[in-house]
């Protein structure tokens, strides 16, 4: 008898044995995942659907935005500038305002998104080389709507005036604009650009799907009655946890790939920084969300509760992470809450790498935050895991 016991003990102790039990849970979850057709389809469809819905519905480069002009200068420059604005297709010059007050009112009431004021003596000052100011007032409450139009405006001015400023005036043409384009973005001084949307969406989609998949994993076993057997077997909570999380790391990786490819093909958003850094840190972010979902699963009594907890957690992620509103524009308490959400840190990472070419050194704090978050959630999950049926 004692020989038998020591034999079993030798077989079941140590890291390799633990790895094998993790493998058991991992393979089992993977098979179950594959059999669950609907969940499987959802994993692929959710990112594609969300991305096209959000990506196109939030039209990143809308045209024909209602615009009012206030022309106080009757020069060839003024006329040609207005004509060129029309030609860009971004602006629909619907109204001619008579005064600055009227221009303000039009913007405030939302009748127009842009007000362009060409001040008196613009042409004359321009010829004199005094760099007169051209005032553009933009309703930037929806930055994605106005952002690209403003960019177009900036590009446009150089062309217009290089054409107008010929002959004796040609000396005024060189690069620094002969006039000053003063853009006043109203209601949203941060002026986020359209590029923010798709990387942000990647974070949001991953949060939602990863959270839900693992949030159901433990409660499902309890409700199906398989938990009793599982608990009676010599498998440890940490092995169960990792075995349940690992398959979804793969799923998250697939979702990430889909989103990145779609971002490139559909929205023409490149990755300026290192792609591998982005992949690595995205996997870390996926792991963070999986651990939170799993933690919910160990706390919830049933699948419904687990779902509710996930949504309760998801909401501040949308609102306070900087996805919806510019992070720096939020009140202090909201920023404080935002700092403890993994999505906040991931948004900085993904936007930093994709749009600004940030490197690992630039993102250290956020990476650290995600890592701490993941370990904390896993620690709570293992501690909370009920090893008995009491």
């Amino acid at each position, binding site marked *: 008898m004692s020989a038998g*016991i020591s034999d079993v*003990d030798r077989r079941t102790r140590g890291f390799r044995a633990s790895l094998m*039990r993790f493998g*058991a849970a991992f*393979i089992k979850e993977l098979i179950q995942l594959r059999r669950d057709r609907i969940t499987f389809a959802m994993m692929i469809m959710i990112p594609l659907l969300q991305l096209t819905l959000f990506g196109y519905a939030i039209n990143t480069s809308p045209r024909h935005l209602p615009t009012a002009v206030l022309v106080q200068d009757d020069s060839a420059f003024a006329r040609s500038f207005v004509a060129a604005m029309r030609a860009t297709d971004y602006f629909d010059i619907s109204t001619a305002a008579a005064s600055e007050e009227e221009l303000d009112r039009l913007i405030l009431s939302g009748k127009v998104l842009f007000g362009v004021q060409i001040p008196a003596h613009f042409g004359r000052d321009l010829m004199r080389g005094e760099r007169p100011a051209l005032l553009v007032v933009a309703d930037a409450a929806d930055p994605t709507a106005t952002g690209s139009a403003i960019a177009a405006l900036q590009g446009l001015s150089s062309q217009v005036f290089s054409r107008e400023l010929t002959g004796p005036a040609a000396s005024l043409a060189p690069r620094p604009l002969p006039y000053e384009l003063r853009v006043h973005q109203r209601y949203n001084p941060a002026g986020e650009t359209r590029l923010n949307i798709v990387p942000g969406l990647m974070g949001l989609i991953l949060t939602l799907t990863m959270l839900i998949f693992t949030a159901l994993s433990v409660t499902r076993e309890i409700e199906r009655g398989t938990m*009793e*057997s599982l608990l009676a077997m*010599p498998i440890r909570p940490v092995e169960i946890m990792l075995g349940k999380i690992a398959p979804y790391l793969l799923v998250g990786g697939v979702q990430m790939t889909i989103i990145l490819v779609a971002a490139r093909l559909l929205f023409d958003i490149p990755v300026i920084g290192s792609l591998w850094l982005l992949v690595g840190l995205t996997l870390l972010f996926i792991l963070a969300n999986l651990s939170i979902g799993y933690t919910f699963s160990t706390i919830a009594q049933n699948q419904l509760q687990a779902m509710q907890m996930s949504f309760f957690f998801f909401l501040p992620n949308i609102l306070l992470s900087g996805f919806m509103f510019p992070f720096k524009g939020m009140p202090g308490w909201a920023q404080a809450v935002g700092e403890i959400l993994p999505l906040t840190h991931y948004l900085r990472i993904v936007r930093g790498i994709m749009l600004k070419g940030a490197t690992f050194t630039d993102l250290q704090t956020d990476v650290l935050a995600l890592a701490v978050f993941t370990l904390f959630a896993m620690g709570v999950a293992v501690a909370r895991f009920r090893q*008995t*049926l009491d």
Partner: protein
Amino acid sequence: MTMDVAAPRRPAAADPEIVIDVEGLTKSFGGRPVVKNLSMQVRRGLIYGFLGPNGSGKTTTIRMLCGLLTPDSGHGTCLGYDILTQSAEIKRHVGYMTQKFSLYTDLSIRENLEFVARVYNLADPRQAARDAIRRLGLENRAEQLAGELSGGWKQRLALGACILPEPQLLLLDEPTAGVDPKARRDFWDEIHALAHEGMTVLVSTHYMDEAERCHEIAYIAYGELLTQGTVAEVVANAHLATYTVTGPGLADLAERLRSLDGVDMVAPFGMALHVSGRDGARLDAATRELREHGPQHWEPGEATLEDVFIDLMSRSKDNFG
């Protein structure tokens, strides 16, 4: 085994022939005691039957034995391991078949068995699963989902999964509930074969014929262990005097007998009536009139196990009701 200083242990625990040795196990749910002061000993290689009405605490007791529930009080050992502190060790050597089917219904038979083999760190999980499938005679259905099996096959598969890691102790919780007689018989043949190979089996059941197939039995009602021993011992210890009555008008007779003082149990058995009393003299006195002048035929008989159980249950109800 080293002596555990913290947990008190009786000398018997060191005896390797005692597989289950618990004393004073008590468990309450929400203030309601479900198992009360339960003590039992099970010897190696025995098939130990665990009987009792619904809700009497059989499942709860089994769960305490394998560390799935923590007793409120009481102590003891299972395979020499302390049930309070060494549940990890117990789990490696015990096969527990739950009352409700608890294999993965969305995994195939082979996948379920391979999962178990891996969790128990068997050297070659695939081979172990293949062998188990052959032993179960499920070669043709290896790829079928466990959820699609009939009740009888589900139970066989669950037993197969339990014995796959070659445990020293099997805890079977109503393994044959809802299974047809042929499958039940096969199941019991298998259990006897396993016991013959040295495995100890604790099996809960509601069937009397299965109780008779056990080496020893224990009867639990309302959380209390009322009797234990071999079937013969249990019957003898009940000290029930019994008559078997045949003839016409048994239903009316049963009605009359129940009201008589000294008759403790009246139960129909097919075409006959079993009439029992704890005090033989009083039973004789109470029934003399009917025995000598009634149209039925009275014959002194042996109390059956069922008589004993029904009597035990009504007795404990008297105490608690």
